[in-house]
């Protein structure tokens, strides 16, 4: 079955069985392996992507369900070499250890800040309660998103400054 969608701003088309999950379409057909699978009961959120700006579990979506929609994966967060505010926040605040939950966390964090630019800690924890992390105990993930909120606020106040920095080694 033919399917077409925009992923990270680029139009993509494919021909897939209806049963192909969105996460596998992204990983295998489009070779965007930043989105991960961590479970088989829709419980962990490692597969989170944005569909028209809203975070959903791509393991619990068929590729054909998002026909014509606009998808953002972790590969689409940075602007070229410049990391987004959320990505920079995760680096600055040590919000990742093994990195496996990180793409999903950052996607959810990005969507949160897009909707709620100044969330409380409780609002952050509630927003990421569909994303499991085994390594960090969530403390620094919360700090990372708070850091990103500040960076975004500063960038909005002074639009000339860049929203993030090209950091993080190779």
């Amino acid at each position, binding site marked *: 079955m033919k399917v077409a969608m925009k992923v990270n701003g680029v139009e993509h088309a494919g021909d897939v069985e209806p049963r192909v999950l969105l996460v596998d379409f992204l990983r295998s057909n489009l070779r965007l392996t930043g989105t*991960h699978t*961590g*479970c088989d009961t829709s419980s962990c959120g490692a597969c989170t992507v944005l569909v028209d700006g809203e975070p959903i579990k791509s393991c619990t979506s068929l590729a054909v369900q998002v026909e014509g929609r606009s998808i953002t994966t972790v590969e689409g967060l940075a602007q070229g070499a410049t990391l987004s505010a959320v990505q920079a926040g995760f680096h600055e605040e040590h919000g990742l250890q093994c990195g496996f939950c990180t793409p999903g966390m950052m996607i959810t964090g990005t969507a949160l800040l897009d909707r709620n630019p100044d969330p409380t800690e409780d609002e952050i924890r509630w927003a990421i309660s569909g994303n499991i992390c085994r390594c960090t105990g*969530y403390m620094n993930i919360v700090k990372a998103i708070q850091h990103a909120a500040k960076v975004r606020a500063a960038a909005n106040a002074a639009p000339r400054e860049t929203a993030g920095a090209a950091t993080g080694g190779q």
Partner: protein
Amino acid sequence: MATEVHMHGRIGESIKRKEDGRFLRGKGNYLDDIDLPAMLHMVILRSPHAHARVKSVDTAAASAMPGVIAVVTGELMAQHKLAWMPTLSYDTQAVLATDKVRFQGQEVAAVVAETKAQAEDARDLIVVEYDVLPAVISPQQAKEAGAALIRDDKENQRDNHIYHWEAGDQATTQAAFAKADKVVRLHTFYPRCHPAPLETCGCIADVNGATGKATIYMTSQAPHAIRTVFALVTGLPEQNIRVISPDIGGGFGNKVPVYPGYVVATAASLLIGRPVKWVEDRNENLISTGFARDFHMTGDLALDKNGKMLALRVHLDSDNGAFFADAQPTKFKAGLFHIVTGSYDIPTAHVTADGYYTNKAPGGVAYRCSFRVTEASYLIERLVTNAAIELGMDQAEFRMKNFIQPEQFPYHSATGWEYDSGDYPRAMNVALEQLGYDEMRKDVEARRKKGEVTGIGIASFTEVVGAGHGAEYDILGLRMFDSAELRVHPTGKAMLRMGTKSQGQGHETTFAQIVTEELGIPAADVAVEEGDTDTAPYGLGTYASRSTAVAGAATAMVARKLRDKARKIASHLLEAAEEDLEWENGRFYVKGSTDRAKTIQEIAFAAYSNIPEGMEAGLEGVHYYDPPNMTFPFGTYAVVVDVDKGTGQVKVRRVVAVDDCGVRINPMIVEGQIHGGLAEGYGIAFMELITFDAEGNCIGSNFMEYLLPTAWETPRFELGETTTPSPHHPLGAKGVGESPTVGSPAAYVNAVMDALAPYGVTNIDMPVTSDKVWAALRAAGVTE
């Protein structure tokens, strides 16, 4: 004039992680991200029964499905002498079942196909006939006369008993109990839980018939040991086996054992001549891979009338599952459980341990346990709190009274340990002050008067990590040294390779910092590589908090070796005697004339271009470090909880965690490790459980049943620290990764026990779920 280079990234600096870049961009290289040309996909058919004879396996329909290249059965593996494999505990484990299945989820057959979907479709069509047998689901059942014999495949195995092991002194302990004024007993079960890293296990086996080389990408915390085991099991020559552990999405001990899937994939690749990828689903991970704990423990603490500890006696029954596959040092059948006297000066102790086969997945040593220290620490800290409550003493005061005192170090414990260093009273005082303990106690009393159910729990743990000294510590005979190879290039940059393997612990940063400290090269200029057995020096891998303690020491030692050579080169360049040179900030300078200096970068270039006569060129070395002793991190954790009388739900109000892991190389990374372990401890204490019904069906084999805490439930953690360096470690560092999972479950549970103490409740086994708390309250007549 010497150039100044900023030595950024020394020990003690919280530099940002060097490895972050690829993960932030979604360019991590995890196992399932790797695709090889002509690669096939494998899935495994697993047993629905806990215990059954395999009568027949019919693969005809499956083999005929589109895209299927091979269907592998136990019979086929047996023809290649691969139906069974050795475990890390000198037992054998079935790779694919031949005679019987011995746990629900055991591997029975495998399908190899062009796509994973095709393999799964074909798997549905394999027909297996079973004769179901009674399931044995606990050590109690395993011991019963007439219990089903699980390991009838083993000659001389007449029952389900695996091992008996003892530590300490039975006679002196018995004598001490006879004289005791008071004995406090605790019987407790540390249930089966699972490390459940977010990335499941998997491999890509690429056995290339043309080159004779077998390349196996594997989610492995110990690639070299695996390579050697594979050589022994498959007969492939070890120099032609390359194990590559790529980025690993969490390990926590789950990725140490050799799993049947790895062996089947390798055999399949060998037979088919194409690469074969196997990545397990989450339910496979939970139902069949290395679980943790499952210890039934009884502890008796003998006390005098003043509350001084006289003796400790512990018996444990270990539920090891269907195959004895613990990943632990050979000599210790119950791991390092005999650390169980913990932080207390107990003159005599006796530990007995018996291991049993049951119809469950094999394993037990995993999930940040430091080889069963989690179980030991849980027992002693629960027993100590119960004893305090029974004596009417404050939990903190009772511990202080019995702590090993700072002047007693190095301390020889009743079960044979030599604790390297510690200051338990200091960590306790820091924790109490950070919590505001006295005010908190008053607050608890005030709330209780209003009818609230609230309490404070304390745990003061002593850990033992850094395995270990070769004469005592080996896995399958491979001694537990570790290694570091350091190579400095002409332009003054360096490459460090080690025998360990990070799964998120930040090795690419932390170990670079050791080189910065010892050799003056900025951390950003030190590339750290692990995991490729073709290039990394031999090591025993990363688990049991051993990397900093052993490979970190090796790194310091090899950096010092290079610094010694650098001194010689500097002496040559500066035309000054070696003893007239000082080392500071990455350069050697002549005493008294600091402008006569050479930086390490200049020396590096000279190692290739201006080497003294008679000296070998280059600036590189390797060190294999055999630790003289273990290290003993410690700490005090304090938890405050409030209990909802109506529902039994427990809310953790505060967690204060004071850790002493000796010198901290990167404090930011250390704190991150502690946060993670405190969260895992929270999950273990309150919600994580793998259990079995009477037929041996596994409950807890998916994330709807095996519950992991989210950011919403997980408490906030307040960290504190003390620093008591290890006297024998080159950097004074002890390691920290598992301290929080060792110390925190008892702290959480002790808080609930303190809250329920006014109602006469003395024990609730983990997970302390709301229904158990409710039942305890109702039994005491408390209701909303």
